[in-house]
C-alpha cells in the first residue's frame, strides 16, 4: 500500500473527479446524439493504439474508431429522414441534420464504479456496470424500447488537454426488447416502413473477435472484463485494448 502525501491525494482526487465526470458526460452527450463531439472531446489524440471493443470485436486505431462514430451520425440522419417522411408537417421544413436523434433516446447509465489511478498518475482504469436503456420510434421494427445491460471497462490516459479515453470495452450481457425475456431468441419483426434503417449497417470491427457472448441459456459464467486492481504504472497491469 502506497502512502501518498496530502498534496498527492488531492491531485489524485481531482483526477478521479475528472475521470468520473468523463463517463457522466458520455451519458449526456449520447442522449443528445453528439457522437462526433464524443469522439473529438473524450478520446485520446496522442496514443498509438486507441481501441473501442464490443461483444463482436474491436475497432482499433483512430480511423476505425472515427468511422464507427461517423457511422452513428449517418444512422441518426437516416432515421431523421425516415421521421420526416412519416411526419412531413411537423418535421419536413428543416434539414435532417437539425433534427438528428428525433424520436429517440439512448441512455448509458454508468453505475457501480471501480476506478484505479496508477501510482505514477499517468493512466487510470475504470469499470462500470452499464444499465442501458433506449426508447426509439425509428428502428427497423418501428418503435422499440431496448434494455442494454453489461459492463464497460476503460483505460484512461492523461494528455495535455486532460484525461482521455484510450481503450474502451463495452460488453453486453443483455440486448433485448423492454418487457421481454432476454433468453427469448425470437428474431426481430422488420417493418418495411423503416426499410432505410434496416438497410443500414455499422462498419464491422477491424479486429473481429468473439470477445463476449450475450446471455443465452448455455452461456458459462465468465469473469470478464477483469476488475481493475491497484497498480503502479501501465506496463504492470493488463489492458482493456487489444
Amino acid at each position, binding site marked *: 500500500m502506497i502512502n501518498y502525501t496530502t498534496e498527492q491525494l488531492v491531485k489524485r482526487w481531482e483526477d478521479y*473527479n475528472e475521470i468520473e465526470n468523463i463517463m457522466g458526460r458520455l451519458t449526456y452527450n449520447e442522449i443528445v446524439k453528439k457522437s462526433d463531439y464524443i469522439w473529438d472531446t473524450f478520446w485520446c489524440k496522442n496514443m498509438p493504439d486507441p481501441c473501442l471493443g464490443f461483444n463482436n470485436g474491436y475497432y482499433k486505431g483512430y480511423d476505425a474508431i472515427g468511422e464507427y462514430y461517423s457511422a452513428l451520425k449517418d444512422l441518426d440522419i437516416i432515421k431523421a429522414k425516415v421521421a420526416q417522411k412519416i411526419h412531413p408537417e411537423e418535421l419536413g421544413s428543416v434539414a435532417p441534420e437539425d433534427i438528428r436523434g428525433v*424520436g429517440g433516446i439512448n441512455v448509458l447509465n454508468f453505475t457501480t464504479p471501480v476506478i484505479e489511478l496508477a501510482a505514477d498518475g499517468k493512466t487510470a482504469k475504470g469499470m462500470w456496470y452499464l*444499465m442501458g436503456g433506449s426508447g426509439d420510434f425509428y428502428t427497423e421494427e418501428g418503435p422499440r424500447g431496448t434494455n442494454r445491460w453489461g459492463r464497460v471497462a476503460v483505460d484512461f490516459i492523461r494528455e495535455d488537454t486532460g484525461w482521455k479515453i484510450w481503450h474502451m470495452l463495452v460488453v453486453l450481457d443483455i440486448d433485448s426488447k423492454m418487457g421481454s425475456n432476454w433468453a427469448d431468441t425470437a428474431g426481430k419483426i422488420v417493418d418495411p416502413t423503416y426499410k432505410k434503417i434496416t438497410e443500414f449497417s455499422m462498419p464491422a470491427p477491424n479486429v473481429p473477435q468473439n470477445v463476449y457472448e450475450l446471455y443465452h441459456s448455455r452461456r458459462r459464467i465468465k469473469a470478464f472484463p477483469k476488475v481493475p486492481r491497484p497498480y503502479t504504472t501501465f506496463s504492470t497491469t493488463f489492458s482493456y485494448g487489444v
Partner: protein
Amino acid sequence: MANSKLTLSERINRAVAATTCEKIMSLHCLYHAGGIHREEIEEFWTKREDCTWSHNFGQMDNKTNYIECYADEQEANAVQIYEQVVPIYPEVSKVKDRRALIEVAMHLLASPVIEVAEDGQSAKGLWYTPGCIFSTLNPQKAKEGMWMWERYGADFILENNKWVYLNLKVCCDMAGMMDADNWPFMEDSGEPQSDKEEDSSKPDSSDVSVGIPGPLHYVLSNTQVPQERPYIPQPYRTFKETYSYATLTGIYEEEGK
C-alpha cells in the same frame, strides 16, 4: 478540475464539497423514497426563499410553494391513502410513518457529473435516474409499479458552512408501467406520448400546485428532438458566471423568455 491558483486547503474544500454534494443527492433519493419530504427540506435545502424545484409539469419557484407541494400536499395525500387502505389492511395502523404508504419513489442515481466552483461556494451536479415507483398495499388490492427515467440537475450552495440544495431540476424522458411490453411506448403510461404540439398546450400529468406551469421538458415522442437539459455542468469560477438550474426551459425557451 485541477487548479494551481488555489491553495491546498481550498482544493481539499472542493474535494469535500463534491463528496458532500453526492451524499446530499443520494440522501434526497432515500428521503424521497421514504416519503420524509418535510425533513428533507428542513435538513438539506437552503433557508433562502428563492429556491426552486422543477419537473416537466412546472416549477415551484419559491420555498413556500415548494413546501406546499412537496410536503403539505404530500402529507394530505398520505392521510387520504391511509384512510383508503386501512379498512382493507388493518395492519397498516401499526405503520409509524404513514407517508411511506403512498409509494416508494426510488429515483436511483447513475452517471454523475459534479463540478465545484473555484470559489468553493457552490456546486453543480447532473445525474441520470433510471428510477422506479412502486406500492404494495393499495385500495384496489393490487400492487403498482412503474419505471420513470429522468435527468436531475442540482445547484448546491455553501450556507453557514453546510452544503444545501438551492435548485433541483427534474427532466423526465420516458415513463411507463413496470416492464410492460415496450413500456416507453405504452399508450397510457401516465405521461403524454403524442406529438409535441399536444404537449405544449397543457402541463404534464400532475395536479400539484406549481408556481410556474410547464411544460419545461418533453417526454419521448415521435417528433421530439434531443433536449439538452439540464445543461451539463462545466468547470466554473463562481455561481454568477454559470447558468442556474432555476432557469426556465421548455416552452419558455421556445417563446424566447
